[in-house]
C-alpha cells in the first residue's frame, strides 16, 4: 500500500506542470463544448431538416436554404442588419468624443462620468421602453416636439421608413456609453508628459490628437469596434421590446426573424429558423475571423 501511494504521488509530481493547467481548464472546456460548440453543429444539422420541434424530423437537404433565398422577409431582415452594422459604428466616434470631453479634472467629474455611463448599466428592455415612450404619438417627447415644429405628427415606430432608424438610435444610447468607458480607460493610460512633449514639438489641437493621442488609443478602438460590430449583429432585444419586428415585419433583423420562425406563436419551423441562424453565424464568423487574425498578428509582433 505504502509503495503504491508513493509511486502515485511521484507520478503527479513529475507531470504536475503539464496536467495542472488542463485540470483547471476542464470545467470551462466541458461547459463550452456542451453548451456552445455542440449546439452550433446541432443547429447546422437541423437546418437541413424539416422539423416542428416535437414531431419526427425529415431530411430535406438544402430545402430550407432554397426557400430562404426566395423569402422577401429574409432580405428585409438582412438589409436591416446591414443598417444596424453601419449606423451602430457611430457609437465608436461618438464615445471617443464624449470621452475626450470628460477627460478633464473638474470638481465632480466622477459624477458626470457615472451619469454618462448610466445608460449602459440599465437593461436593454428598459432602454427600449424609454425610447418607445419617447417616440410615442400623443404623449411622447419627440413626437410632441416634431408636432410643434412642423405641425404634422410622425409615429416613428409605426412608420416603415423610420422604424429601424428609431430602434438603432435607442441602441446607440447605451453603446456610446460603453465605447466612452473603453476610451476613458485608454486616455487614462496616456503619459501626460507625452502630450507635453507634443506641445513642445509644436503639435496643437487636432494635430496633437491625430498624431499623438489617437495612435495610442488603438487598443481601445479595436475593442470598441469588436463589441460594437458584434452588438449590431446580435441585436434582438430592442427590436423585440419596441416593435416586435413590425410594422409588417419592416424592422425585423435576422436574429428576430429566426426567433419568429422557430420559437414564437407564428410558427415552430425549427429547420427554417436554424437555416437563418446558420446564415447569421456565417456573417459573424467573417468579422470574428478578421478580429482574431488581427489579434494573433499583434500578439506575435509584440
Amino acid at each position, binding site marked *: 500500500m505504502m509503495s503504491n501511494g508513493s509511486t502515485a504521488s511521484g507520478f503527479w509530481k513529475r507531470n504536475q506542470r503539464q496536467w495542472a493547467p488542463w485540470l483547471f481548464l476542464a470545467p470551462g472546456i466541458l461547459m463550452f463544448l456542451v453548451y456552445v460548440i455542440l449546439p452550433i453543429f446541432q443547429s447546422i444539422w437541423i437546418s437541413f431538416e424539416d422539423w416542428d420541434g416535437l414531431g419526427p424530423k425529415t431530411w430535406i437537404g438544402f430545402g430550407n436554404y432554397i426557400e430562404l433565398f426566395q423569402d422577401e422577409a429574409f432580405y428585409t431582415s438582412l438589409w436591416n442588419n446591414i443598417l444596424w452594422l453601419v449606423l451602430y459604428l457611430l457609437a465608436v466616434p461618438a464615445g471617443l468624443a464624449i470621452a475626450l470631453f470628460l477627460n478633464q479634472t473638474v470638481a465632480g467629474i466622477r459624477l458626470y462620468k457615472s451619469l454618462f455611463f448610466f445608460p449602459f448599466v440599465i437593461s436593454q428592455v428598459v432602454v427600449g421602453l424609454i425610447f418607445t415612450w419617447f417616440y410615442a404619438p400623443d404623449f411622447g417627447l419627440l413626437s410632441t416636439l416634431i408636432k410643434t415644429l412642423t405641425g404634422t405628427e410622425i409615429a416613428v415606430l409605426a412608420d416603415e421608413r423610420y422604424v429601424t432608424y428609431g430602434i438603432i438610435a435607442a441602441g446607440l444610447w447605451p453603446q456610446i456609453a460603453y465605447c466612452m468607458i473603453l476610451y476613458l480607460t485608454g486616455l487614462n493610460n496616456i503619459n501626460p508628459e507625452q502630450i*507635453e*512633449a*507634443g506641445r*513642445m*514639438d509644436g503639435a496643437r489641437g487636432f494635430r496633437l490628437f491625430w498624431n499623438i493621442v489617437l*495612435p495610442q488609443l*488603438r487598443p481601445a478602438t479595436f475593442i470598441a469596434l469588436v463589441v460594437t460590430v458584434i452588438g449590431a449583429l446580435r441585436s434582438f432585444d430592442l427590436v423585440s421590446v419596441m416593435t416586435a419586428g413590425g410594422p409588417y415585419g419592416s424592422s425585423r433583423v435576422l436574429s428576430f426573424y429566426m426567433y419568429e420562425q422557430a420559437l414564437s406563436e407564428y410558427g415552430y419551423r425549427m429547420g427554417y429558423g436554424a437555416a437563418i441562424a446558420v446564415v447569421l453565424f456565417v456573417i459573424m464568423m467573417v468579422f470574428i475571423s478578421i478580429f482574431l487574425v488581427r489579434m494573433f498578428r499583434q500578439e506575435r509582433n509584440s
Partner: protein
Amino acid sequence: MGNVTLTRVTKKFGAVEIIKGVDLTVEDGEFCVFVGPSGCGKSTLLRMIAGLEDISSGSLSIGGRDMTDVDPAERGVAMVFQSYALYPHMTVAENIGFGLRMTGHPKEEIARRTAAAADMLQLKPLLERKPAQLSGGQRQRVAIGRAIVRNPDVFLFDEPLSNLDASLRVQMRIEISKLHQDLKSTMIYVTHDQVEAMTMADKIVVLQAGLIEQVGSPLELYHRPRNIFVAGFIGSPKMNFLKVTARPTEGGVAVTFPGGPSLTIPTETPVIKGETTLTLGIRPEHLDRETGDVTLAGTVRLAEHLGSETLLYVTLADGAEISVKADGLTSARPGDAISIPLLARACHLFDTEGTALHNGDLTR
C-alpha cells in the same frame, strides 16, 4: 542667443504659491542646474520656462525677447522629460523628426537633420526601432536627439537621469556635459542629485520652498554657502552643525562647545557684538587632520568602510552626532573612543536665523 531672464516670477496653483518671486539670469551658453529638495518648485520653474505652466506674475525673456505668454513651441526651447516621453507608436527616426514635421519642414531636410542628430548620439543603427525595443540609456539618447534636432537656443532637462541605473547615470552625465561643450547652447537642468549638480554645472541655483537660496558656481556654493540650508544641502555627507556659545574677541570669535573646550575662530571683520548662541558648521572631510586647534572627544557609533575612505558616525561627549570622513585604512570600529581634531580655519559660523556670518577657508 539663449540667455534666459526671469523677473519676479511667481506661480500660484489656486491659493497655493509654489514659486514665490524668482529673479534669475542664465547667460547664453551657460550650463545652469536647479537643485533643491523635492517640492521646492525646481521642476515647476523649469516648466514655466518651457511654457508648459503659465506664469502667474512676473516676466520671462529668452534671447532678449519677452516670452511670458508665448506658445511653448515658439520659445526656441526644447525639453527632455524625466520619463523621456517618447511616442511609443513611432520609430526612433519618426520620434526625432516629429517636431520638424509639425513645423512643416520638407521631407529631405527632416531626414538630413534626423540623420545628423542620430550620428551625434550614436543612434544610427536604431533608427527603425520602436521605443519599446530600446534600453533605458538608448531611450534617453532618443529623447535628447528629439531636442537637438530642433536646434533650440535653450535645452531644458527635467531630472533626465533619475530613471537610469548608477553606472549608466555616470556615463550619460559625461555625455550630456560633452554635448554641452559641442553645442555651446544654454542648458537648464533640474536634479535633486547634488553630484550631477556639482559635476555638470557652470552655475547652480539652490531652491527651497519656491525661493532661491543661493546662486553661484559649484565650488562657490560648496566653500562659501550663504546660509545653513545651502551649507547642509551641498556636500555629501552633509556638513556637521554644532550648537556653540560665542563671544567676540580680538580678530575673531571665541566659541565654547557644550562639552567644555573652546576655540578662537579668526574672522576678517567682527561678526558678532555680544555673547550669543551660534551654529558652527564643519565639513566631514575637514575633521580628518593630524592636528587641530582643539580636539573633541567622542565614541564611534558606526563605521562605513568604502575602501577609498571611511565614514565614521561619532557621538560626542554631550550627545551631539557628527560624521567624519576618514582615511580608507582607518582601523576605527564601533564603540572605539576617538578624539577629533578641529581646525579653526575650516569652521563656518551661522547665526540663529541660519545666515552665514563667516565662511571657513583652509587656503588662508
